[in-house]
């Protein structure tokens, strides 16, 4: 197939969000919150003909119903794209449905418990300080390019047992898969193939010389019949860990620093009351949840009174659920001491993010170390903040000035 046929045209600008929403529209990318409010006011589930037909639940309740309903909604496709090619590269367990989901997920859970994360924490603290050392003397930096971007990729590389210096390559693949891949299938497939070949090389090395990292843990895992996992399963899970573990947390740390740059009162309070940090992290996760997932409708059903037809995708926006005022009073206010906060940033139901404890630890450490070294900072008025497009939202340029304004 030619490049032209596999790369879809630019999307026409949206004029009616309720009937024709598009999460790749630049206005959505820049500031999705008023759009979600408009959609939620119109209906608990909206639909667009774009992306070959796609629903979006707009309320916490509708998002929750769909997340729990694995009978009518499949996870075999987890990104809403312009095309729906045949499924060739599953990444268990994120793309798994019951009954295959549980055994695939259970393999990944023990290495990501809070206890396991405590062991990784010193390395993450060191990574943060190494990064800050590189720019603190400049009195300013692009915090997305110089700081937040590098923390999760180096941490997950450390866990997997692959060189931290390969980070730039991983970041490029992720950009190609999650952002360019929405419209450009060739770029996506090439990135997936390159990533698979990269990990296949690491598998081969470990067959000769086993290690004690997460790659070897997966290779040594046995299914319920005592059999090792197929290489394809291991490779799929490794792709998942790399893709899911990097720009998600990069985004969460970036949004948090963006908020703190604009909100000196919250910054000062976190410095004065460090014990508030765990509660504050949850509120930042709620207010700036980076990750929107997807489902594919398998059977006709009804969600919050709205008929749902097979053949459509679902944009499963946990970020929009987390801004639903029916669930969260003053949902658009960031309150770093919010007491009751059942946010869905890591999903709900069986697909709860396997890396949630890693993400929380990285966010906490990244913000703590930043505040220790750079207690005063603000957005650089000479620069511009830009946000990623697609289903993982966070700042990709975040120009900051350090110190108090003179």
């Amino acid at each position, binding site marked *: 197939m030619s490049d032209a046929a596999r790369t879809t045209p630019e999307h026409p600008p949206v004029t009616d969000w309720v009937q024709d929403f598009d999460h790749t529209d630049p206005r959505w990318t820049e500031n999705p919150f008023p759009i979600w409010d408009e959609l939620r006011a119109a209906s608990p589930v909206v639909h667009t003909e774009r992306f070959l037909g796609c629903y979006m639940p707009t309320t916490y309740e509708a998002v929750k119903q769909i997340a729990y309903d694995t009978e009518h909604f499949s996870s075999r496709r987890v990104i809403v794209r312009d095309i729906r090619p045949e499924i060739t590269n599953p990444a268990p367990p994120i793309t798994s449905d019951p009954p295959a989901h549980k055994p695939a997920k259970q393999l990944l859970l023990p290495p990501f418990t*809070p206890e396991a994360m405590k062991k990784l924490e010193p390395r993450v603290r060191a990574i943060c300080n190494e990064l800050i050392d590189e720019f603190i003397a400049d009195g300013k930096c692009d915090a997305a390019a110089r700081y937040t971007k590098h923390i999760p990729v180096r941490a997950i590389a450390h866990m997997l047992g692959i060189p931290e210096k390969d980070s730039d390559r991983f970041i490029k693949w992720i950009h190609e898969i999650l952002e360019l891949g929405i419209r450009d299938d060739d770029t996506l497939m090439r990135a997936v193939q390159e990533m698979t070949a990269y990990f296949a090389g690491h598998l081969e090395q470990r067959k000769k010389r086993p290690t004690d990292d997460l790659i070897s843990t997966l290779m040594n895992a046995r299914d319920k019949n005592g059999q090792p996992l197929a290489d394809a399963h291991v490779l799929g899970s490794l792709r998942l860990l790399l893709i899911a573990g990097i720009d998600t947390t990069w985004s969460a740390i970036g949004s948090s620093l963006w908020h703190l740059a604009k909100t000196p009162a919250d910054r000062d309070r976190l410095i004065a009351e460090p014990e508030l940090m765990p509660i504050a992290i949850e509120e930042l996760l709620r207010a700036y949840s980076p990750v929107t997932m997807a489902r594919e409708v398998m059977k006709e059903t009804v969600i919050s009174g709205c008929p749902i037809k097979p053949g459509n995708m679902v944009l499963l926006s946990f970020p929009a659920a987390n801004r639903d005022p029916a669930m969260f009073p003053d949902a658009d206010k960031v309150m770093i001491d919010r007491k009751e906060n*059942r946010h869905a940033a890591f999903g709900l139901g069986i697909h709860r993010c396997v890396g949630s404890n890693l993400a929380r630890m990285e966010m906490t450490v990244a913000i703590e170390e930043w505040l220790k070294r750079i207690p005063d900072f603000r957005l650089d008025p000479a620069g511009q903040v830009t946000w990623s497009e697609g289903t993982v939202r966070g700042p990709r340029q975040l120009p900051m000035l350090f110190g108090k304004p003179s």
Partner: protein
Amino acid sequence: MSKSPGLKLRVDPDKCQGHARCKSLAPELFELDEYGNAHEIGDGSVPAGLEDKAWLAQTNCPEFAIEITEE
């Protein structure tokens, strides 16, 4: 430690998905298994003085998996 006359909690293992919010907010009342799923410590009786923490954990569970009963 004297027991509160009031509260007993239980994590519903069918609902818990291992968000671990309860363990973070009330480590005295919850423990995690090797998969990171939460369980009440002991028989779930809430020691005196920890009632607020029990309610805090309950109201932050994204899966509504924590049940609190008054004895």
